[in-house]
């Protein structure tokens, strides 16, 4: 009784269409969540280093609260906990227009924003004090110092850990299947349900995730080389 492989299940019937649909959903939810995570991460990461305590405390609260609760719980929170707080008319509209997608997007984005924040903060804190002093000496305000000098430098420093975080975000999007988002992992299960061919379906999902991640890692590698700040980072092998 050995397992009989039947790879044709992946391209016969509706499997191909399902995988494509799942892939598009995964890409859409990940891309939107990534934008949200990057915005929240940059904002709170910067705020954690500013010379005003209430702002630092607020940013620290955001980071610790959101990164230390499991993503699965956040999925349920955004899907089940938030809608009752919305006005009834909007809620009804939302339920008809992909409430689960938006809930999953916020869960992913806010959770990864908190993690991204730490990456940004470590980038900012690796910048020598003298940079801040020089910027202030130019007559810039604190907001200008961050916007024009510190954050742009930090972003160029943190490409490798940010890539790491982005890949995690992409893979974590699979958790959204618990709130009925029909993303890639969901679709591989769907194929399994219809064909009883679990290994083939899982392999297809794995290969797609792997390809996506390698692609992102490759692009980010180029970004890293393109935007590296000469003299600030000792490049391995360079």
């Amino acid at each position, binding site marked *: *009784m*050995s397992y009989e492989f039947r790879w044709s299940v992946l391209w016969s019937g509706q499997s191909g269409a399902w995988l494509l649909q799942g892939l598009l959903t995964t890409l859409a939810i990940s891309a939107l969540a990534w934008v949200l995570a990057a915005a929240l991460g940059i904002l709170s990461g910067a705020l954690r280093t500013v010379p005003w305590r209430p702002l630092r405390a607020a940013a620290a609260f955001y980071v610790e609260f959101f990164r230390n609760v499991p993503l699965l719980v956040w999925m*349920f929170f955004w*899907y*089940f906990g938030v*809608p*009752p707080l919305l006005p009834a008319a909007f*809620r*009804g509209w939302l*339920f*008809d227009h992909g*409430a*689960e997608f938006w809930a999953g997007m916020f869960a992913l984005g806010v959770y990864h924003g908190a993690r991204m924040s730490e990456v940004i903060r470590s980038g900012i804190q690796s910048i020598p004090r003298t940079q801040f002093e020089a910027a202030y000496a130019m007559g810039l305000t604190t907001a200008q110092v961050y916007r024009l000098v510190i954050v742009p430098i930090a972003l160029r420093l943190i490409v490798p850990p940010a890539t790491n975080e982005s890949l995690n975000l992409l893979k974590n999007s699979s958790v959204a*299947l*618990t*709130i*009925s988002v*029909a993303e890639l992992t*969901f679709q591989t*299960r*769907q194929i*399994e*349900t*219809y064909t009883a061919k679990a290994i083939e379906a899982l392999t297809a999902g794995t290969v797609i995730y792997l390809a996506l991640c390698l692609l992102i890692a490759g692009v980010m590698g180029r970004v890293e080389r393109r935007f590296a700040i000469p003299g600030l980072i000792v490049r391995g092998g360079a």
Partner: protein
Amino acid sequence: MKRLLTAALALALAGWAAPAPAAESTLAKIARTGTLTIGTRRGSPPFGYVNQKNEWVGFSIDLVEQAIKPAVERKLGKPVKVEKKESTPATRIPLLTSNAVDLIAGTMTDTRPRRESVDFSLTFFVTGAQFLVKKGSPIRGIGDIAGKRVAAQQGSTNARIIRARVPGAQLREFPDQPSAFQALAQGQVDAYTNDGIQLAGLVAKAPRPGDWAIVGDFYSYEPYGMALRKNDSDFRHLVNVGLMEAIESGKYLQLYEKWFGPKGEVPYPLTPENKRFLTMQVVPK
């Protein structure tokens, strides 16, 4: 380590593939051991579950104890005891074919593909997919769900049927029953579909059972049967005789009332159609 694993795996596979040790009939085995071993469920109320007093009970178990066991005892002319083992959807067929249990009495739907591996008794319970809605919902059955948001369990046959028959329905598939029910309670979905008896179990456990309604005719057909080893018609006949006598004598209805009646664990009235179906399975004496 790897070699050890391979060896273990090979051994397991060999055990799986090896033909059953030459034919001792199930009845001969029961006569020799004095035990009828059944595979049932620990967590499927009210068919087989462990109750609050920590007793392993249920409708399927009662049927074995009160309908099938007497028939076996009469045939063998000696008392027999019933031993229960846990069996899940994944393990029940291997348990049976490896002789670990003699009869599966749980919540197993009789299907044609399954009949290629095991034999089934006559049908002892009939259910089918229905919809759970909030009381007062305009949804009355599968005809009303086009354009509506409908929750289903991921990977269930129900989701499959809906997708094929009502492509316009907005299907939302959840991995487990509680989240689907929560989505219904909050209005993320308009209806939740599953086997009628599962929905009834859900409502029975809900904080305010009166808020919910189970609607619609069965749009799938799930006849539960007891599974036994293939090609053992003497034992199969005996199991069927036990069930037929219980249906004929009213014992079946009495047990049905105990578990599914208004005061039962999961109230689920026996429809006239199902009652007729059950009695018509009873062949003449």
